[in-house]
C-alpha cells in the first residue's frame, strides 16, 4: 500500500540533513516495523510511505494519511 501525508509534521527534523533523514527513517520503522520504504518531496512537502495494509493509524502521528492503494 502507498500512504501519502501532505505537509507532514516533521519538526524539528530538517530533511536537508542526512542525519535527520536517518532519524525520521528510524521513527517511521519503529512505528511501522514492516515498512518497505518512504520518500519525502521537498517541492510539494509530501511524505509517501510504502507499507503493508493497516499502517494508517501508526502513520497518523505525522499527519492526515491518505491511502493510494
Amino acid at each position, binding site marked *: 500500500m502507498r500512504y501519502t501525508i501532505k505537509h507532514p509534521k516533521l519538526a524539528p527534523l530538517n530533511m536537508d540533513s*542526512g542525519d535527520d533523514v536517518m532519524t525520521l527513517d528510524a521513527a517511521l520503522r519503529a512505528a511501522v516495523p514492516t515498512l518497505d520504504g518512504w520518500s519525502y518531496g*521537498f517541492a510539494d512537502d509530501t511524505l509517501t510511505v510504502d507499507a503493508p495494509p493497516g499502517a494508517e493509524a501508526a502513520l497518523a502521528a505525522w499527519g492526515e494519511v491518505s491511502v493510494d492503494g
Partner: protein
Amino acid sequence: MANVDCRIARALQSYTITYPSPDETLLASPQALPTSEPATPQIEFTIGPQHLPTVSPAGLTYTLTAILYAAGQNTDGAQQTVYYRLLKNGESLNTGSAAVPAGQYYTWNFAPSTLLGITVGDVLAVKLWATSANVNWRYKALACAITRAGPAGVLLVNLNISTTPYPVLTRGNPAQYGSAYIYLQTEDKNWGSGLSTSPISMRATLPLGTYRLCRLYYGDFQSTIQAWTHVSYWPYYYANRVPTAISFRPLTIRV
C-alpha cells in the same frame, strides 16, 4: 479511417520520435556506500543533447522528463536500509529510504514529477548511503523521454500514436507492470485511459493545455520513486511506454 471534409480539416501532421540508447554505466567493481550522507553525489548526469529524443520534423509541443536508476547489493548477512537524496542543479528534490534484505540487490527507480521540464544543462544527481558499509552501488543509468505531446485547444481527427517500451537497459530485468501503458488524455484532468496497444487510433479527440495528447505513466501520470529488490535481478526497473510516432489532422475549429 473516415474521410474528413477538407474545408474544415488542415493537412495531416506526422511526427517521428527517436530515442537514444539510455546512458548506462557499470562500475568495474562495486563501491561501498558510506554510513552517513556523503558530501558529494556518487551519481551525476548533466543533461546533454545526446540524452534527448529527436522529434522530426520540428514543431511538436512536448515536455521532457527523465528516469534515473541506481543499483547495487546488500552483501551483509542482515537486512539493511539504503538512503538516497535526489538533487537537481544542487537542490534537493526528494529524500527517503528503502529496506534491502540480506544478500539481495536493490535498484532505485527515480521518476518523480519534479523532473518534468528538464532541459539541456540540468545536473541530476543522487547521493546514496546505508546502515552498513556492506551495501554497495555499481550501476547507474539515465533515460529521457517526451510526455504531454501534441497541440492543445484544437479538435483533432485521424489520430494515430505508436509507442514502444523505453528504456530497455542492456542488463537487468523490467519490473512487473513496467512499460505497460501510455495515458491518452481526452480531458485536462489528472486521469486518462491507459493503453498498451500500438498503434493507438482515434477518430477524433480534443487535447487541452496541461496534459495534451498523451502522458507517460512513470514520472508524469504516476510520480514514482521506488527501490525494487531481488535476489538476482539488477537493475530491476520500471520502463515507460513512450510515443514513437504521432499523426493527426487538426480541424480549423478551436475550443
